[in-house]
């Protein structure tokens, strides 16, 4: 694979990765959000795959395949199942309205770019130059996590955050060791399963998955 083509494809995958994070903020339909999350999982897998092929590290290729199976297949499947169980498909009122959260995402991207500059200058290469993308997705995921009300969209925010961390690891250090990656993957799977169970319990208790209702537990 030529360097030019590698750079192009890597940048394209990073672009798709960032756009998916933005679309999560844009959509209101929860099923569409899950679809976009799956797309982001594919983009993340492609980033890892390209890095692995470029540096001829076959372990990384394996990790990339595993990551994309988990993030584009298993997790969206689990979320879709808890969506059909919860019955509610719309994020009715995020705490920050959509236009404002899109503008916030723009500001967060610029912040990530500014914050990543010293890191990029340590060893400039096509992969490290794309590092701000990973940081931006971390920040956007955190933003989605704190401004959304429904349990499912908070899960997506959390997973977005983790996708960003994984992408940063890929881009900065060409991936973490296999054993760490496996640990993270199982942690994630467990977290989503627990959250799915929690969503179901909330639904049976309140008939809703709006997390603001949970304050009644304090009484």
């Amino acid at each position, binding site marked *: 694979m030529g360097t*030019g083509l590698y750079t*192009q494809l890597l*940048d394209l995958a990073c672009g798709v990765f*960032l756009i998916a994070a*933005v679309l999560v903020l*844009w959509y209101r339909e929860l099923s569409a959000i899950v679809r976009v999350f799956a797309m982001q999982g594919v983009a993340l897998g492609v980033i890892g795959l390209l890095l692995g092929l470029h540096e001829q590290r076959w372990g990384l290729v394996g990790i990339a395949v595993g990551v994309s199976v988990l993030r584009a297949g298993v997790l969206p499947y689990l979320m879709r199942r808890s969506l059909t169980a919860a019955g509610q498909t719309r994020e009715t009122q995020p705490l920050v309205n959509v*236009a404002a959260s899109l503008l916030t995402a723009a500001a967060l991207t610029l912040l990530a770019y500014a914050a990543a500059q010293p890191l990029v200058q340590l060893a400039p290469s096509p992969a490290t130059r794309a590092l701000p993308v990973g940081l931006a997705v971390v920040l956007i995921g955190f933003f989605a996590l704190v401004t959304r009300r429904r349990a499912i969209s908070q899960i997506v925010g959390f997973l977005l955050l983790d996708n960003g961390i994984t992408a940063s690891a890929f881009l900065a250090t060409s991936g973490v060791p296999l054993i760490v990656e496996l640990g993270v993957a199982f942690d994630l799977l467990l977290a989503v399963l627990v959250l799915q169970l929690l969503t179901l319990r909330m639904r049976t208790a309140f008939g809703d998955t709006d997390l603001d209702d949970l304050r009644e537990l304090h009484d």
Partner: protein
Amino acid sequence: MTSPSSGLVPYLAVTAQVLVVVGGAPLLTGLMRQVRARMEGRAGAGVAQPWRDARKLLRKEAISPVGTGPAFRLTPLLLVASTAVIAALVPLASTDTPFSARADLILVVALLALGTVSLALAGLDTGTAFGGMGASREMTIAALVEPTILLSVLALSIPAGSTSLPAIVAGRIHDPNRLASPSGLLAIVALAVVTLAEAGRLPVDNPSTHLELTMVHEAMILEYAGPDLALVELGSQMRLAVLLGLLATLAAPWGIATTSSWAALALALPLLAAKVALLGTGLAAVEVFWAKLRLFRVPELLAGSFLLAVLAVTASYFLTGA
């Protein structure tokens, strides 16, 4: 590119561009209406119907409502004239024109805004409820659209190192890698969304409605009749054609003449017509399946497209291949 060369062809290219836009814009609208009609199972009025409408309107007596001032009377001329100037500036068929040194992005956006503002002033000038409502809606949309157009084309101008449109287009022709870069793609998508908003097409404004809840453009021109109405219609058709032409030029710049030769120009004009017709047909086809957005959700759409433009600009800094 930026230094105009001598000879007859550059002047001919500009004349041809303006003539194609003026003559072809009503045909483009007719084509889009015809595509829409066919897809909805109607026979349609034919591609040349907008020209027949214009002929009919031009034969009528010129009337202007009592109490309207110069803003109402000058707007049709200003709208058509400013759009014709844009058609001459934008490198639709050739990047080598006598005006290419002045074909700056900021000038083009300012001319677009001039047309929008004069139309809004004309809507206010009539003093009717609809005119004022349409004008206020149009200005709301325009305030969100102009920065996005500027930003998205700025993202394309960073690799070219110049905000001159011919330089951007020529750069994109000579370096096709830029076409598929994330920054370029994001900018084109952002530009496509604002083109729909600026031209008053479906998700933002429905061009074929007269329902007071939804209309934006139609509300401002309700009081026009006769030749003035023909000019306003022609102006908005030309705006659509120019904006689609700009989008096609930036997204798929192949075939645009970069030198002043007869053969290149002869190839560029039919290609331009084909590209714009293709874009128009595609737009009309998707419009059949789209519903108009609620007015309160339009800022969301435009904020999204602004974000895409910002990402395009930042991506061109932090991605190597952009």
